């Protein structure tokens, strides 16, 4: 059997579970979106940083290459300067040389000690193979170079010699990377780094006047993926050589870190430095950067996942805690709410066949239970009254039966105590017969009522003339009434047709007439009146001139075993059942019975029957 508390709890649990689940889902969805947005922005930031880092790395790579190229250029220049200076000092000066020196001394008084000015014959406007050098000697680290220059056989360095010297000076294994330097001096054989490297064609076309370097990624099958920087610089020549290019006053001095090189006198010989570096270096850096990015992305992703998991655990924990606490709370609350019901149930369970009262304080009940309580109380009261009436009826029946039996038994006992005469026995037997008849009569009435109670619906309706029936009844009663010195008069207005049970109607009339005979005074009258009813049916009246019935008793006379005058019971015939049976019959027939009475004057019973 389901418990109210448990089923309420179960419903509540289902509801609570659904609510918590939907809340959890909403929170999870919301948190998920927030976390994803954060992850996305973080990812974007990391990507941007990665891109910036990649560009930075490339710029740095390029910068390094530029520095390298410039270093090479400056190195070349310094070597070249050292060579030309040495050659200048070691050779006896021709008059032209002297002149040039003079000019040099005159026009370039401010040359620093490191400067070498070399004029190359091929592009010298002065022609011939003359190279004029103006050298300011300065001790440098290139002592060995100077010594070899010192050993020039002709004392006049040729282009090839100079080129050789330059090349030698770069034969040192200081430059792991590949480079190639083009000068006018080394037109056919550019200066190159060590190792087996393919010759790189010089393409100075891309170099703008304003830009001394450019980068490209040449397609060089031997080198793999490489980057090249083409850097242009100038070997300084005295102005009077009239070399190559016109002065370019707009160019910025210095050219980016090679060294402060005053060039107030113009550019001089161009030198193209090609420096090549493998892109794999850059790639490595880029890979590192990408890896870093991936690492960060993974970190962000895992952090997001962790956050989501943590949130879910928390939400689940809160939900579980809420669930448990609400269940416990609901258990108690429902218990408190059900307490009036429990009290009522306990009060009801205390009701038994001995005590039919519902003992409960009404203030303990709730509004909803009051109707139940009231109905129960009413039903129990009705039941109690019914029980009491039943008990009363049983007591009455037993009393009514015992009394004649006691008389019978006493009569027989007395008769049998000693020998009697025949007359005495006859008297005794007659008395016994009288008592037995009373008993039989009583039993008959009790059984009639019992049958009526047991089978409440048995009515056979026939089209009956109540007037004719009344005549028959009057004929039956008349001898009895005459034996009681009573006058029976009839006022019958027929026919009074109605559909009813003639046997029961006859019973009603006979009973009422018997009653009238029994409760009349000697010399009294009885009147039986029958008239058709106003709307069909019939009205039967039985009037007597008896002792009458007190008003407060009039409602009770139809109760079973009630006797208006107990003193009349000494005849033993009347057990107070006659009127009860009459009323029962009249009810069956759908009619009503009323009584009018005046004390001392008489009583009239009126039965109204429907058509």
């Amino acid at each position, binding site marked *: 059997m389901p418990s109210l508390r448990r089923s309420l709890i179960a419903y509540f649990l289902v509801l609570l579970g659904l609510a918590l689940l939907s809340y959890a889902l909403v929170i999870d969805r919301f948190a998920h979106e927030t976390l994803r947005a954060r992850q996305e922005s973080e990812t974007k930031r990391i990507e941007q940083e990665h891109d910036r880092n990649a560009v930075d790395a490339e710029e740095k790579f390029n910068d390094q290459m530029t520095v390298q190229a410039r270093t090479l250029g400056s190195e070349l220049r310094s070597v070249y300067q050292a060579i030309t200076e040495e050659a200048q000092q070691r050779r006896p000066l021709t008059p032209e040389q002297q002149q040039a020196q003079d000019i040099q001394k005159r026009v370039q008084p401010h040359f620093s000690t490191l400067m070498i000015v070399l004029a190359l014959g091929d592009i010298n406007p002065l022609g011939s193979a003359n190279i004029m050098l103006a050298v300011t000697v300065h001790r440098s680290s290139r002592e060995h170079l100077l010594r070899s220059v010192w050993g020039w056989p002709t004392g006049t360095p040729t282009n090839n010699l100079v080129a050789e010297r330059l090349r030698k000076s770069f034969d040192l294994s200081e430059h792991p990377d590949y480079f190639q330097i083009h000068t006018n001096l080394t037109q056919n054989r550019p200066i190159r780094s060590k190792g087996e490297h393919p010759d790189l064609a010089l393409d100075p076309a891309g170099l703008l006047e304003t830009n001394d370097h450019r980068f490209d990624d040449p397609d060089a099958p031997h080198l793999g993926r490489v980057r090249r920087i083409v850097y242009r610089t100038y070997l300084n020549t005295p102005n009077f050589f009239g070399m190559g290019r016109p002065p370019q006053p707009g160019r910025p001095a210095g050219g980016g870190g090679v060294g402060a090189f005053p060039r107030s006198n113009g550019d001089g010989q161009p030198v193209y430095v090609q420096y090549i570096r493998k892109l794999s270096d850059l790639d490595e850096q880029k890979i590192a950067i990408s890896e870093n990015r991936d690492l960060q992305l993974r970190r962000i992703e895992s952090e997001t996942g962790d956050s989501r998991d943590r949130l879910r655990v928390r939400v689940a924990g809160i939900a579980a805690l809420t669930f448990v606490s609400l269940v416990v709370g609901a258990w108690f609350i429902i218990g408190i709410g059900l307490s009036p019901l429990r009290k009522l149930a306990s009060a009801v369970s205390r009701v038994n066949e001995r005590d039919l009262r519902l003992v409960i304080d009404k203030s303990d009940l709730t509004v909803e239970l009051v109707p139940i309580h009231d109905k129960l109380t009413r039903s129990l009261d009705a039941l109690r009254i019914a029980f009491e009436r039943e008990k009363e009826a049983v*007591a009455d029946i*037993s*009393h*009514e*039966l*015992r*009394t*004649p*039996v*006691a*008389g*019978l*038994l*006493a*009569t027989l*006992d*007395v008769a049998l*105590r*000693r020998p009697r005469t025949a007359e005495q026995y006859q008297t005794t037997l007659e*008395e016994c017969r*009288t*008592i037995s008849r009373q008993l039989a009569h009583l039993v008959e009435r009790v059984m009639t009522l019992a049958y009526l109670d047991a089978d409440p619906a048995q009515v056979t309706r026939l089209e009956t003339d109540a007037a004719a029936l009344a005549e028959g009844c009057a004929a039956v009663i008349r001898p009895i009434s005459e034996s009681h010195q009573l006058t029976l008069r009839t006022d019958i207005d027929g026919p009074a047709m109605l559909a009813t049970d003639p046997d029961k109607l006859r019973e009603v009339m006979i009973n009422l007439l018997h009653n009238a005979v029994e409760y009349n005074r000697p010399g009294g009258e009885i009147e039986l009146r029958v008239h058709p009813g106003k709307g069909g049916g019939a009205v039967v009246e039985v009037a007597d001139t008896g002792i009458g019935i007190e008003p407060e008793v009039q409602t009770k006379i139809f109760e079973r075993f009630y006797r208006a*005058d*107990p*003193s*009349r*019971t*000494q*005849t*033993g015939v009347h057990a107070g059942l006659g009127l009860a049976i009459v009323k029962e019959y009249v009810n069956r027939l759908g009619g009503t019975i009323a009584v009018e009475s005046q004390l001392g004057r008489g009583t009239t019973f009126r039965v109204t029957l429907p058509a």
Partner: protein
Amino acid sequence: MRILLIEDQIPLIKALRQGLEEEGFAVDTATDGEEGDAKARTTPYDVIVLDIQLPKVDGLTLLKRWRAGGINTHVLMLTARGTTEDKIAGLNSGADDYLTKPFELDELLARLRALIRRGHQKKDPFIRVHDLTIDTAARSVSRGTKKVSLTPREYALLEFLAFHAGTVVTRTMIWEHLYDEYDENTSNVVDVYIRYLRNKIDKGFENALIMTKWGEGYMLRGPDDLGTAAEEPAAETAKAEKPKKK
């Protein structure tokens, strides 16, 4: 012994009256509460047999009224209501015994005799006066070893005297307790029955037990006054006959 029977059932009254009278009781009857009340107040009955359901005034009300008014006559309730509650109600109202209808006549008689004994503070059904023994239960009498056969009325008289053994009972007392309301109003009958009784009890015995007190009544000798009464019986017999002759 005189009994008032208050009962509304005519056949029962008839039967009981006959039965009780044949057993030597004097029986008065009343058929409703008021009549019963009036009779109970005017006559000192030994026992009243009272039905509960009565016309006019019911038995319980009647009983309560008597007990409140100082009438302490023994009452045997007689009713058709046999439930425990009814019995308790009857006993609480002051009834001395209770009998449910229908009943055996013998049981009623036995209970009535028990109530009468109780009225004389005797529990033992045997009453012994010298060598006279009266069995009130079996209603048999013997003197010495000789069994005495008595008519119911003689027995009733002897029993009445025996209950008052050693004290004088007046003719009126005897009459009141042994004769009912319909008996002829003469105490002469008492003297006649005393004589019958003497013939059966004292005749042929050395000591006469029934004595006549002049101007007072009769007395059954008490257990302690045998010596002085030894010479009296003959004289008393003569004297006792005198009222009869009057």
